[in-house]
């Protein structure tokens, strides 16, 4: 009896020691992210293979909510680093002076499109997510619709009431679509295009991934969304085709940035360095066909091969600095009308 007690006690003591010694080395890094929920564990595990001493504490939500959270916490940041948030959002934070510029090791391996142009970049890209159209073949056949091949196609009368897209005032993907049309068709042409498209839109959703999910579920034949969502739904067995419109597609990237004022700067820099290594990029490549590392990306199942070549030369700065004006204009044109019948 006494013996067992002794054993138990010493065992407990040893365990306690182990816990404390472990806690002494490990750094808890608070990482804000909008990376897909299903990828989080994989990302953290792969990172920990190389850096077991840094413990990632994820704060994950959709792009809009993470951005709002970071902006709300501007004077009292809770995050140490952002890993996987839209570059457009990071531009917003950079212009508020919220990011700590850092030049990660191996930056030269990256396509210059994929990082901030300043000599010491404030953010560095991981992978690109591209706009795309999800087309439900079963519902398309039922409604006698041919598959669209271009953005202009979507304004054809036959698609009236069969198209759904995200509202740019609630969704970053929606804004990506709008800002890319303004770049593809020019300022005036872009608004003309949206005027025509508006006639065909069944409704605008609040989230960027919903249009594709709705197309996958047959709730609507055509969803303007991003390709990643479509590929995942197709993998799950949805009867959809992912269409990359011929005029070119807008895109944004998931990027990494260190929050100014973090007291775990060293760990944050380690993560930033690692986030652009070949290993990390290969990890992103399992779901995203376009990554920042030059000449590395392999095609990803269900993504059309023309994805990379049709990405437009997206001007992130234009999008960020004109965001308020564009959103106000959009709201004036399309949001003040009541429900389109």
């Amino acid at each position, binding site marked *: 009896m006494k013996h067992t007690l002794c054993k138990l006690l010493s065992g407990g003591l040893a365990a306690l020691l182990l816990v404390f010694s472990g806690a002494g080395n490990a750094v808890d890094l608070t990482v804000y992210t909008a990376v897909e929920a299903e990828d989080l564990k994989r990302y953290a595990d792969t990172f920990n293979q190389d850096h077991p001493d840094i413990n990632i504490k994820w*704060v994950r939500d959709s792009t809009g909510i993470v951005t709002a959270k970071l902006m709300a916490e501007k004077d009292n940041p809770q995050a140490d680093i952002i890993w996987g948030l839209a570059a457009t959002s990071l531009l917003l934070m950079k212009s508020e002076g919220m990011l700590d510029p850092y030049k990660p090791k191996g930056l030269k391996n990256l396509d210059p499109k994929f990082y901030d142009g300043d000599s010491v970049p404030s953010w560095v890209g991981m992978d690109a997510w591209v706009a795309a159209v999800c087309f439900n073949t079963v519902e398309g056949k039922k409604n006698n619709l041919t598959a669209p091949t271009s953005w202009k196609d979507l304004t054809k009368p036959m698609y009236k009431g069969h198209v759904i897209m995200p509202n740019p005032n609630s969704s970053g993907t929606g804004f990506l679509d709008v800002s890319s049309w303004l770049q593809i068709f020019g300022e005036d042409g872009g608004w003309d295009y949206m005027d025509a498209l508006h006639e065909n839109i069944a409704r605008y959703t*609040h989230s960027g991934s919903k249009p594709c*999910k709705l197309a996958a579920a047959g709730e*609507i034949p055509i969803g303007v969304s991003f390709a990643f969502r479509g590929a995942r739904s197709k993998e799950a067995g949805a009867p959809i085709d992912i269409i990359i419109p011929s005029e070119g597609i807008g895109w944004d990237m998931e990027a990494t940035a260190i929050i100014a004022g973090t007291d775990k700067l060293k760990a944050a820099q380690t993560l930033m360095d690692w986030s652009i290594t070949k290993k990390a990029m290969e990890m992103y490549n399992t779901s995203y066909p376009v990554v920042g590392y030059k000449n590395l990306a392999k095609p990803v199942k269900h993504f059309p091969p023309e994805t990379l070549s049709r990405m437009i030369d997206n001007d992130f700065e234009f999008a960020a600095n004109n965001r*308020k004006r564009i959103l106000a204009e959009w709201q004036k044109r399309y949001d003040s009308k009541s429900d389109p019948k």
Partner: protein
Amino acid sequence: MMTSAAQATVQAINTAAPLIRPKTSRDDKIMIGYMLVVGLYLIIALALPLYAMLSKSVSTFYFDLNNFEFQVNNGDGWSAPATAFALNEKLKREKLKREKLQAVQPEQLTTSSDGRLAATVFFPDFSFRGSTRYRIRQINPASSFLVGSRQIVDTEWHEFESNEFRRIYLRASRSTGLDNYRVYFSTPALFLSMKNSLLISLISTLITVSLAFGFAYALARSTMRFKGLFRIIAMAPILVPSLLPGIALVYLFGNQGMLKELLLGESIYGPIGIVIGSVFFTFPHAMIIITTALAISDARLYEAAISLRASRWKTFWTVTIPGARYGLFSAAFVVFNLVITDFGLPKVIGGQYNMLAVDIYKQVIGQQNFEMGAVVSVILLIPALLAFSIDRVVQKKQVAQLSARSVPFEPKPHKQFDAICLIYCVLVTVFIAGLIGVCQYAALIKFWPYDLSLSLNNYNFDVMDGGGWVSWYNSIRLALYTAVAGTIIVFCGAYMVEKTNRFVATRSAFQFLAMMPMAIPGMVLGLAYIFFFNNPANPLNGIYATMGILVVCTVTHFYTVSHLTAVTALKQMDREFESVASSLKQPFYKLLSKVTVPVCLPAVLDISIYLFVNAMTTVSAVIFLYSPDTTLASVAVLNMDDAGDIAPAAAMGMMIFYSNLCARLLHLFVTRKVMRKTQAWRTREGGSD
């Protein structure tokens, strides 16, 4: 009366109170301490956050043209510095001569925290290919400007080539004023939401109150069977989040819906969907109030009507309706408030139809425009406060209808009437149970509508948005904490208000604070909490992003109804208990623990189940406050639906339903036990009450 009582208090203090009440002074000190603590709670959890939100809504941003100075060099040396204001004035003057010139208009100067103004607008001849060089500086470091996305905050001169100068954007300075409200009312899209919200709330109120009245009437005035069953099913919507009916409606009437044809081509996404869903989730609230109102009718009035040979129809309009009118009013206001402040339902099924509560979300989450979010919140407060104050006035007018001589109404069998009632109640309960059933069915389908085989895939929450199973576990934790902490806070508060004889002014102030949460939309409260608690200067900043803030917010959000329940229960107890206790020199806490709490135990249990159920289902109050460690099931339903994972959202919604159902059953069981143990005195033999 209040002032005279307050004067008396002052007098009592001035004229050496110990002489008058020598033994209760210690009690009084403890009691006022208690009252202060609970009062302080309400001030911190309610008054201060609301104040923070109000001040946010009047925090404005504008481009201060006088603060920026420019110099131009066309190769012939630098021009004299000119402010942006001076350049703009020049533009206005020259506009008369040159048609295409566009000066910056005064209304363009009002902006949000994220506003940007291109510096090139002040230079009509600007060309990015030109060789002109530009200099810019700000005079005070009150604002800033951007080079691309790099922020410059100093007051030095910065020099740029033409090609770089086009990347210069002026940022806004902070000020205070009503500009945000002006922008709100001059933006048609925002203004329209107000109209929509009012319209939807009125229509839903009308339908819900009529339906609920019919239902309550059938329960009270017929002798049909299955009354208990009907009552239980009609209460079910209270156990689910308000957005669950939205999800059910998508499955029923969406483009792939099972009963799509019934809508005759109309879309469920929009006003129709919002109204049907609103009727569903507000039905039990209206039903409870109206049932209570009908229950206190006096049978003698009906006997009089019969002996006067009044028709059933006439009796209905001259006896039943007038008798229940206060209940109907009350039900209408409660429903109106619930609908206009609800956020989940219009978000899920509202489609294009803009409502105030969704606008707050769009401003805050979609555009990170917190100031405008605060403005919409304040606007949303107005109809809610209005409805609330009218209700208060109406309730005050209500006089006791039950006199000692009243005879409770006993319905008599009437075959035809009973049959109609039965059919009506079956229809209503089929509607309610149907919507919940559809959700459960949808949750079990593998891939609607292409693969209808059953599977549990949709319960695999861990690979989806919303935080996984942990969210459900967190919700249970939140509900338990809220139930326990909330009941204690509310009951103590109510006890202080009801059972103390002094400090009248403090008590009325407290009573006012306790009634306020009823009128505050959850979303407004949540947003106010961000502004208040996330301020690093706030010493309570530590509870931000913890379970603590969720508990505080939820308790506060549902404070009023709990408070009223407690007060009602306490009112049943004669004040003589206090007198007796003090004459026996027993401290009040002994009385509280030995007599008051046991007697009021059923009410205490009612408060805790009310708080529990609401903490499980609330979305609007916590949507801005949850953190990665405290994701919640109700928010997960919203987020999964948002991401397009509608079936898993339904599955999680049903998990909330079952959890609440279990809690409810447990509550029923415990109440029964407790009743037997502590409430035996209520059924003393021969007692007729």
